[in-house]
């Protein structure tokens, strides 16, 4: 009975995925309602919150890119919040404040290392704007990013809006090439049906705009997030999106609001990042299941399906891979699946080259490695995520930084 149930759920996940992707293409090309009506005359005051930990000069580049935004300078500010970096990130923030005088840059510093989510909350304390945009400090932003995000809030029930995250280093390695494909497909296709119902399940923390009042309402929940007493610092973007939806607001991804992030270039870094994300997915699934009746009554069915089946599919993927490895271990290595993957890669590669030349991939065959990665991802990351729910490790940091972070997390020591 149990295997039948597992397969049924997987089949459902697969069907929903196929329907979603097909629907996405139909919506994208033929349904105007799938895209929000943007009002560029709507220009609320904006605070760009930039939590930072050990990013070095990158924070300077990030603030520089924001300073070039096509948005009235007097209507936006940058609040950079250093989370007790052990490198010179703070100095770079101060330098940015000195150099980019065309905009208001505020620089703050946590007294203790608190993690990204709490750093955002700390930065929020200094904001008085109508709109808050939380960004990652290692991203580069398109000049129109703020304008594009703000324009979407002309819809009164719009709670959170995300931008499209591109890859800064698509050709650094096979690993980054794979991620470029995934990022592009996720934003340009997978999120389109969710956009249609204004119910995007997870807006990327790289570029996350939210009404300040709403964020203030959610802030206590962010601060008090814990897993059996252990503070949760990860997955604040998924959590914020989820909370936005539960409060009856819409969520949306505006693919015209662009930013570019540096994705992990090595397998260990990617593994750690994906592990952190998988923990968030699992945690979010448990939260969803725990409060399922509330979800069913409050949210759009598409949203409930997204919130339940996407993480459930990731969990059951583990069972699929186990079944496959114990049944027919070489099934995935046959020419047929490889051809399918390479065909998908060829199409995606062409689309990316045509519509986002900056992310053009030199070697589309790299996508073939996704096959192996998906095995690793399904088999190890889900298992490890389930067994390390108590971890506070951010993952993608150097040894020195991790040591400092661990120490800070353990003792909440002063900077």
């Amino acid at each position, binding site marked *: 009975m149990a295997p039948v149930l597992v397969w049924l759920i997987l089949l459902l996940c697969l069907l929903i995925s196929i329907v979603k992707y097909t629907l996405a293409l139909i919506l994208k090309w033929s349904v105007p309602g799938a895209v929000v009506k943007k009002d560029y005359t709507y220009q609320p005051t904006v605070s760009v919150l930039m939590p930072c930990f050990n990013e070095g000069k990158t924070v300077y580049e990030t603030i520089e890119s924001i300073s070039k935004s096509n948005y009235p300078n007097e209507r936006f500010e940058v609040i950079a919040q250093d989370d007790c970096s052990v490198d010179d990130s703070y100095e770079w923030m101060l330098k940015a404040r000195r150099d980019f005088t065309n905009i208001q840059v505020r620089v703050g510093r946590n*007294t203790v290392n608190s993690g990204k989510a709490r750093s955002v909350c700390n*930065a929020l304390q200094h904001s008085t704007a109508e709109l808050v945009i939380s960004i990652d400090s290692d991203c580069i932003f398109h000049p129109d990013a703020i304008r594009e995000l703000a324009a979407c809030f002309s819809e009164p029930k719009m709670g959170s809006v995300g931008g499209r995250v591109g890859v800064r280093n698509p050709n650094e390695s096979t690993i980054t090439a794979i991620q470029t494909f995934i990022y592009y497909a996720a934003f340009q296709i997978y999120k389109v049906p969710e956009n249609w119902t204004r119910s995007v399940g997870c807006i990327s923390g790289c570029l996350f705009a939210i009404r300040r009042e709403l964020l203030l309402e959610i802030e206590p929940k962010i*601060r008090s997030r814990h897993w*059996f*007493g252990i503070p949760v610092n990860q997955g604040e973007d998924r959590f914020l999106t989820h909370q936005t939806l539960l409060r009856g607001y819409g969520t949306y991804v505006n693919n015209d609001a662009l930013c570019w992030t540096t994705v992990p270039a090595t397998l260990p870094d990617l593994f750690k990042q994906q592990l952190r994300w998988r923990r968030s997915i699992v945690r979010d699934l448990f939260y969803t299941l725990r409060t399922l009746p509330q979800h069913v009554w409050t949210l759009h069915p598409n949203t409930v399906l997204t919130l339940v089946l996407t993480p459930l599919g990731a969990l059951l993927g583990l069972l699929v891979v186990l079944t496959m490895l114990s049944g027919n271990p070489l099934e995935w290595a046959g020419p047929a699946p490889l051809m399918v993957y390479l065909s998908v890669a060829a199409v995606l590669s062409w689309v990316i080259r045509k519509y986002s030349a900056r992310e053009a991939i030199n070697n589309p065959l790299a996508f073939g490695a996704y096959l192996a990665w998906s095995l690793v991802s399904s088999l190890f990351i889900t298992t490890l995520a389930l*067994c390390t729910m108590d971890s506070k490790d951010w993952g993608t940091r150097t040894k020195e930084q991790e040591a400092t972070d661990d120490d800070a997390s353990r003792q909440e020591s002063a900077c």
Partner: protein
Amino acid sequence: MTTPAVKKAPAEAKSSVIQPLLYKSVVTVYRVFAIVTLYVVLGGVLAYGFVMGFYALNTSWAAPVILSPVDDKSLDFTEKLVTSKQTLEELSVDKKRLEGSIDEMNRHRAALLALEPELHAAIIREKKHNQATGPQLLELDKQKQADNLKTQRVMAQVKEVETAIDKDLAAGLITKGDAATQRAALNQAESSYTDSKISEILLTDNVLEKTTVDTKSLNVLDKQAELISEIAQLDIAIGVAQKQVHEETQQIDRLKQALTTAKLSPYYLSVAGDSAVYFAFVPYDNQGHVSTGTTVYDCFLNMVACKKVGTVKQIFAGEEHATHPIFKTDIRGFLIQMQLDHPESAKSKTVFLNRKPLFF
């Protein structure tokens, strides 16, 4: 600008004393469970990788196969075997019948051949006789005709004699009795003449028969031709039958050969074997480790703590296809028969030939 440390949320501050303890207990249990799980997973992954690597490199494994008389291949084999045996029996019976027919036809042919010279001799003999008696009869026929001619002239006077008798009777010269006697003598003479004419005609016919080719001779020749034709037909029939017998003999030989080969098949042993027979599939890659008498090992977890469980009894020549017990790919190989001291080893996923795979 330095942001002060954030105060603990009110909910957290008000949490009871029990809750932290509860959380701590849950987290401890979870961590123990997680560590055990992760070690199990790690162990599983390493073991899986080792098994994969082991079977990718090992060339001495064989996969025991239990052939059931009711599985598809055995049933198919049995069906073909029964059909072949039935065909063989039918061919044998048919061959015997044909051979009987040939014997019968040969005897008949011999009898006809024996008749043919006798007939020929009789014809010659008759021809010779006719040649001898024909002229004599012709002479006699001529003489007879001359005799009859004379008699005819004599008979012409009978009317006159009858008239004279009537006159003498009327005159009372003779009595009625004398007259009747004389008339009877005259009738007898006429009758003799008539007989003589008949004899003449018969004689003429006889002469004709003996001096010319008549229908009777033609009948005899026809009979002779029939005899020759019948012999020829028999020759053809015998030839066809002999060819058929030859072909059936060849077919029987082939079938017997096929059956002999089939009896060497593992499926025959499986179907016809009185006692349990144990087989194993050996991929071609592992062929080098197989020979009759090679030791068979069965191992714990299919690779360690191996023990000797038997020997290779027989190697079958036919190619077999099987699924790799670990990689699940289609592989080609052949079957061997094992002499097992531990029959339960026939149920193992794999056995090893010639040596222990990991030397223990």
